């Protein structure tokens, strides 16, 4: 961020979140354009959670006029605004949350916008839809799918919350894995590392230097000793690792009375045997990326991600000799700064060399494809650093999900007859509710005097759905009653929850950091449980 007054203010305002997704994540957020369809309680709660952290702009699409019911569960609609445009009032109140975000609105329904101006939605980074009927939803899904624009479908229905992410292909370079092993290459050290490690001789050191030798060096030294005894093999199983540990322990210096000195670096080396000697190899999901047709068949339409993956693949096959680029960082360890910094430099320089090789391959590919190639060296660096953690999310389209032939659905709905079924049961019920609305133009339980009748009708819708899937209906009546009890209510606390969860998915999509859901998230507030399934 720039060093202006404004930049500093922003740094302070966003300080607590910059620590999670960094400046580049924040920049992505600040240049994003978010569209919300329907300013329902859930919709405005989602936007609230995107406006506070500072998206670039938002647009509310809504043709409704505010009713008493809206004011009862929506923080962003006021009582005195009843009868006014819901899009306009929500936009005004939401805009108050953050001066850095611009907001506008369109007083038109998504349905009619899709008919009159289907290019409208192409301007957005992500579209968030609430309260759409099945027909409009599928139409919108198709339009956005064609244009490769991510869609988040969100819904709060009684005590059930639902989020569906529809994204054709989403590549995540910075997936922030929960736990990652260090990339130290002790099993296959690169030449500059070997040269350095071989230049160190533990046996002719004074006491102080000995106990301040980085554990990495210690481990390497005794690993050579071990390998010499075992035909060049590194220890793999527990017993072998223990043997190496004993070798290291035997190397701890002793004082004149023969008592072992305390050498923290040796303790660290022993501890590191388990994790630092995991063989260096290309992870299976990265191999999979290498074999993906999008990687194999590059063309002028290929995205930067795929060109980078291809460059990486070629690097592995050539300069990398079967391994990914060196990550270039080493963990903290007991050591004197001089040797620690030397080691740090060696890894860092090797990482730079590897990045340069990948970069060369990338530029060659771009040129051969006749593309401009608009990517900074920094981005290539980030890519190489995260090469072991690349993630690709390909969601199924709504069309595939809603097709009666969908095998995924058939599989999921088969096991819902147990005493305590998976929360997927509510997905099926929501589908039945939509089909109910399609036939009866109202929601089950909406009218107080028709609840019983609606229970029967909803059961009918369920049976029809199951019939289409060709699976026997197995959902308990209790659930149908419960669904009718909701009467399509949207509770504010539910909206707050889904507002938080959905906004976080939107932030993942916009910042291209962390791995978004694939593809459906269901929240059951009665039991405080949730489930993520691919449908």
């Amino acid at each position: 961020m720039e060093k202006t007054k404004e930049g500093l203010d922003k740094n302070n305002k966003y300080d607590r979140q910059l620590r999670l997704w960094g400046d580049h994540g924040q920049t992505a957020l600040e240049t994003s354009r978010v569209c919300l369809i329907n300013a329902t309680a859930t919709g405005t709660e989602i936007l609230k959670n995107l406006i506070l952290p500072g998206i670039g702009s938002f647009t509310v699409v809504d043709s409704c006029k505010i009713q008493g019911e809206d004011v009862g569960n929506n923080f962003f609609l006021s009582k005195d605004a009843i009868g006014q445009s819901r899009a306009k009032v929500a936009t005004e109140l939401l805009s108050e949350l953050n001066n850095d975000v611009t907001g506008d609105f369109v007083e038109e329904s998504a349905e009619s916008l899709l008919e009159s101006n289907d290019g409208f939605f192409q301007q957005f980074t992500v579209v968030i839809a609430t309260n759409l009927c099945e027909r409009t939803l599928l139409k919108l899904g198709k339009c956005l799918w064609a244009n490769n624009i991510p869609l988040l479908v969100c819904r709060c229905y009684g005590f059930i919350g639902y989020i569906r992410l529809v994204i054709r292909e989403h590549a995540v370079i910075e997936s922030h894995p929960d736990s990652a092993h260090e990339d130290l290459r002790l099993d296959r050290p690169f030449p500059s590392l070997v040269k350095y490690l071989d230049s160190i001789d533990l046996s002719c050191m004074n006491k102080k230097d000995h106990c301040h030798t980085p554990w990495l060096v210690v481990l390497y030294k005794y690993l050579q000793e071990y390998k010499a005894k075992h035909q060049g093999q590194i220890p793999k199983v527990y017993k072998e690792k223990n043997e190496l540990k004993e070798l290291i322990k035997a190397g701890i210096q002793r004082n004149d009375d023969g008592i072992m000195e305390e050498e923290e670096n040796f303790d660290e080396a022993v501890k590191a045997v388990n994790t630092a000697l995991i063989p260096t190899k290309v992870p299976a999901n990265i191999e999979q990326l290498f074999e993906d047709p999008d990687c194999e068949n590059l063309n002028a339409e290929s995205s930067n991600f795929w060109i980078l993956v291809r460059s990486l693949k070629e690097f592995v096959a050539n300069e990398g000799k079967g391994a990914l680029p060196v990550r270039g960082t080493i963990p903290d360890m007991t050591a004197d700064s001089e040797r620690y910094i030397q080691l740090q430099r060696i890894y860092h320089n090797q990482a730079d060399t590897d990045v340069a090789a990948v970069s060369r391959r990338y530029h060659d590919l771009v040129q051969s494809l006749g593309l401009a190639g608009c990517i900074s060296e920094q981005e290539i660096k980030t890519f190489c650093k995260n090469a072991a953690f690349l993630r690709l999310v390909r969601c199924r389209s709504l069309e595939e999900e809603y097709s009666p032939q969908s095998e995924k659905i058939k599989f999921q709905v088969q096991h819902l007859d147990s005493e305590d079924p998976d929360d997927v049961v509510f997905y099926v019920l929501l589908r039945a509710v939509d089909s109910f609305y399609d036939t009866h133009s109202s929601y089950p339980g909406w009218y107080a005097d028709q609840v019983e009748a609606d229970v029967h009708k909803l059961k009918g819708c369920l049976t029809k759905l199951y019939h289409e899937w060709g699976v026997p209906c197995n959902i308990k009546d209790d659930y149908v009653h419960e669904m009718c009890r909701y009467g399509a209510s949207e509770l504010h606390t539910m909206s707050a929850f889904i507002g938080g969860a959905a906004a976080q998915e939107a932030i993942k999509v916009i910042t291209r950091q962390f791995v978004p859901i694939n593809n459906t998230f269901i929240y059951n507030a009665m039991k405080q449980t949730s489930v993520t399934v691919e449908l």
Partner: protein
Amino acid sequence: IDLDTIDVSNLNRQFLFRKEHVGKSKAQVAKDSALQFNPDASIRAYHDSITSPDYDLEFFRKFDIVMNALDNRAARNHVNRMCLAADRPLIESGTAGYLGQVSVIKKGLTECYECIPKPPQKTFPGCTIRNTPSEPIHCVVWAKHLFNQLFGEEDPDQDVSPDTADPELTADAGQKALETTSAPEGNGGLKRVSTRAWVEGIQYEPQKLFNKMFRDDIKYLLSMETLWKKRRPPTPLDWDKLPNTVDGVVPKETIQDQRQWSVQECANVFSRSIRILQGQLAEREDGGMLVWDKDDDAAMDFVAAAANIRAHIFGIAPKTRFDIKSMAGNIIPAIATTNAVIAALIVMEGLKILNGDIEKCNSIYLNRQPNPRKKLLVPCALDKPNPKCYVCAPTNEVTVLLNVEKMIVKTFEEKVLKTGLGMVAPDVMLEDGKGTIIISSEEGETEENEEKFLSEFGVRNNSILKCDDFQQSYELTLIIVHKEKLEEDQEFVIVGDVSELQAKSETDTGTKAEGASNGACNQTGDIVVEEDDLMIVEDDPVETGTQKRKLEDQDDETGPPSAKKKKLSADKYASTDDDVAMVS
């Protein structure tokens, strides 16, 4: 109730606060903003600390639910005790980045906040900070102490000069050092003049300050030779000869806050920030002092610069200002989305309580990503109270290991009773047949006892102390176990369950068992929370709902038909009355 005022860094997640509110009372602004949503709600704002005696039992009894959104253990312990004493349900919650948790505490029914002893918060031995830092955090702590010595409240526990009483030194090593080196300007080790008086004497001249802290004091440390036999000795720095290079590997093209400063740059920032802080101090009344604040630029600059200079001297990897801010400010990342989810979960549990269904409440943990069973949310049944809890069990008992001949009453009160056992205003009586009062919460009554050792009152091995905190309505029986010396130079150890102590002394295998079984689903661990406000729901929130409901009904003609059902069948989750408010 919230003691805090609004800071810019709150705005990224607080939809009740806007830019124009920065500096104002959080409680008041939250109230004003919330009233705009529902002018009929009755909300009272207190810009105050929840530990104040004004909020007594009677006060807590006025409420149906208490909700905690605190950021520190002391206040949490206190509210926990108040709610236990007042027999009111407490919803305890916390968030940290993507993680969050919500739990419900009810006397006799559930585990209380203190049923499972929490690991003590990390502190560092004084001699590591003053003499032998080995990690960046040691330098950061030292720099914060230096700030307080120079500009803030002086605390003898926060001395920054070399420590001649380091246990690693032989009895006379410190003394020898004193003799062999001429005592540095400003009396590095000797405490003839306080640091504050000295620095005022030199009028906060940055160059002199620098040379004392980073040259003379370091030379003095070097003279304590035993410390450096097995350590890399520090390198004194001279203001006039500073290296202009950066230690370690420097990534290019980063922004100011995340760029690594060279030692020369650190010295410049050090000097500049001292001048600004000196100005701030001058604006205060005589005897005024500054309070270190991570969001105050000069205060943050000072600590970042001083910590890095010290790190360089001791050959410790330097850190960026951005990272030091995290370390020094105990910053916990906080975002709107996690807070929205947790707030919603809190209200969900609150609704159950108000419906009289407290036994249906859960503890809920929000994970960073779906777990292997695809659960992002993990609900757990509430645990039963720990019958041996020293806070909520019918008879409270705790054992404390300490040296009765070395601990003075003041330390006992501040560190053992207040910090360790979470009391606010304790009275302490020795069970010696006479009922000797050692500490009284009445101001001035036992002041003369403060500097005396516990043994002077007859406290010895197996002595029983009756501790009573009137404010918390909390009584505790404290059993003293006299120990000459404790592990790792601890001053005292608190053992909740005496049988654990016996088990430990017999087998010396530690005390893990009890805590571990409990932690089965507690993957998120003990979360520290970002927000430091306590919210008390004064009126049944259902009433709020009812208000809105009426409004809705009035307008039903324009909206959905008014034949909407009012009473609901299949009443699984709520009594019929409240149902109306929950389901619209």
